[in-house]
């Protein structure tokens, strides 16, 4: 079923909508949550929460693309759970992603309010616009979907080393970009 058909089911308040959503995007959502959470039960719970959130927000929302909408919900729920579960310890694979992101933080830029956080997201969107498609996909797959480097390496047909270096270069670019943008935050 295409996205429009699934959205129509949501608008009709048909429970079949969730079944179709799970059939089409269940694997993507499971994987998004599974890259962040290691516990299978947590992942399933995250999946159910994602479908519930979709049910509660569509309508009035009519997201396009639908896959981005549900993956975003799943990621944000998984990150929230991850933070709650791992507050006192740092050994998850998502910690590696966070460690890498730490390298992108320029000095002198602070984010204290929701408005500034939105501005930061807008700056990252502008940064992503500057990248070529291959680099942008690599960045989003690593830092949004939290895909392991080995998997990205295989997908990009480079060695893991080269992929790590390429990600490093992208982080350098983002840090420089944010530093420049930070002057106006």
């Amino acid at each position, binding site marked *: 079923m295409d996205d429009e058909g699934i959205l129509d089911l949501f608008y009709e308040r048909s429970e079949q909508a969730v079944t179709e959503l799970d059939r089409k995007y269940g694997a993507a959502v499971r994987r998004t949550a599974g890259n962040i959470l290691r516990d299978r039960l947590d992942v399933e719970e995250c999946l159910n929460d994602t479908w519930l959130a979709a049910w509660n927000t569509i309508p009035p929302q009519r997201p396009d693309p639908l896959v981005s909408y549900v993956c975003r919900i799943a990621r944000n729920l998984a990150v929230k759970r991850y933070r709650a579960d791992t507050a006192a310890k740092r050994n998850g694979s998502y910690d590696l992603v966070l460690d890498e992101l730490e390298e992108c933080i320029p000095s002198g830029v602070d984010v204290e309010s929701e408005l500034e*956080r939105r501005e930061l997201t807008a700056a990252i969107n502008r940064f992503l616009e500057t990248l070529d498609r291959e680099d942008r996909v690599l960045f989003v797959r690593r830092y949004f979907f939290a895909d392991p480097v080995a998997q990205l390496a295989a997908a990009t047909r480079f060695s893991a*080393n*080269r992929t790590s270096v390429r990600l490093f270069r992208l982080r350098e670019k983002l840090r420089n970009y944010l530093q420049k943008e930070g002057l106006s935050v």
Partner: protein
Amino acid sequence: MNRDDLSDAIGGIDGRFIAEAYSHDPEAASGPSERIVRMKTKRMVSLALAAALILSLGLAAYAVGSIHLARQQELRQDLKVDENNAGSYVEYTLPETQEPQGAVLLSAVNDGTEERVYVNVSPVTEEELAGFADGASRFSWSIEGYELGGFAGPSLPVDLNLSGKEAIREALLQYAYDAETQTATLECWLTVDSFKKAMEALGTDTVPLQLNLSTDAGTRCLGTIDFALTDEQSRSFDFGRAVYHDEEFDKEIEIVGLELTPFSAVWKVHYEGDALLHSPGGDQQAGRDWLLLEDKVCQDAQLVFSDGSTFSTGGALTTPYENGVVRQYCGWGGAIDIGDVQRIVLHDLVLWEAP
């Protein structure tokens, strides 16, 4: 700002980018490529050679000893060491006593910027190695007594093309693992400059390099080797600040020189405004044409060998600005014969030619 702020901000990025990345999901791609089939044959030949040699050593040492020897031979062949006279590639003498556990140093090569170190480690379970494909297992190296560490990963053939988690798992177990001895072959990447600092701080010529495996169960040390930096093999080309005019961007870029090793290259280029563009405040959007032109130099320039074959160093992995030039570092898997380079050209511009 902290890393959680940044993570949250990335969580809110434009849905177009998420959909674009989703459509590139490697899980959606097809299975193992033809390349894998070819490599299977290669590995069988290597193992057969190793087994033949080992017969004379007695069966008791075979199980563990053969895998170290076999791996050395596979790496040598895969990295095209003999074929392309990579003199900087160093193989180490294998231990006479074949212990079933710990780390065994196989070989290393210094490309001037990075040192690649190949190590066999055991015991590693099949599940632990396969877990590398989805991030459930992570390998790393660290230096005992010094705050320095980095990533390591299972060593796979350099030209192997893989798509999808299952294909990666299969390749890991096929090329980087010996089930009988529970031995995994790892490749570690060490930054040469950082490693030198570690040696200086420890006041020694060798450092204790510790190999680690992290899983949900925690981190355990797989073994430690004493390691010293190896010598690099390089060849420098001075282009006398050759000027390349690019018609697409209508810009001119000076190509100052090239530092070449069997496994890497540094293209040194200079253009108006390069220092500013590569500074933290550099406007990369405004300088996009220059960045593309930098890449063009690395990607389009051809090294021409005596048999007429050509090689491109590929796009740069890092581009620091140092001493008045942008240093574009490029790396690749298998060695090239740097002594056999006869010409270097960029489209119609001959940058260098053997006398």
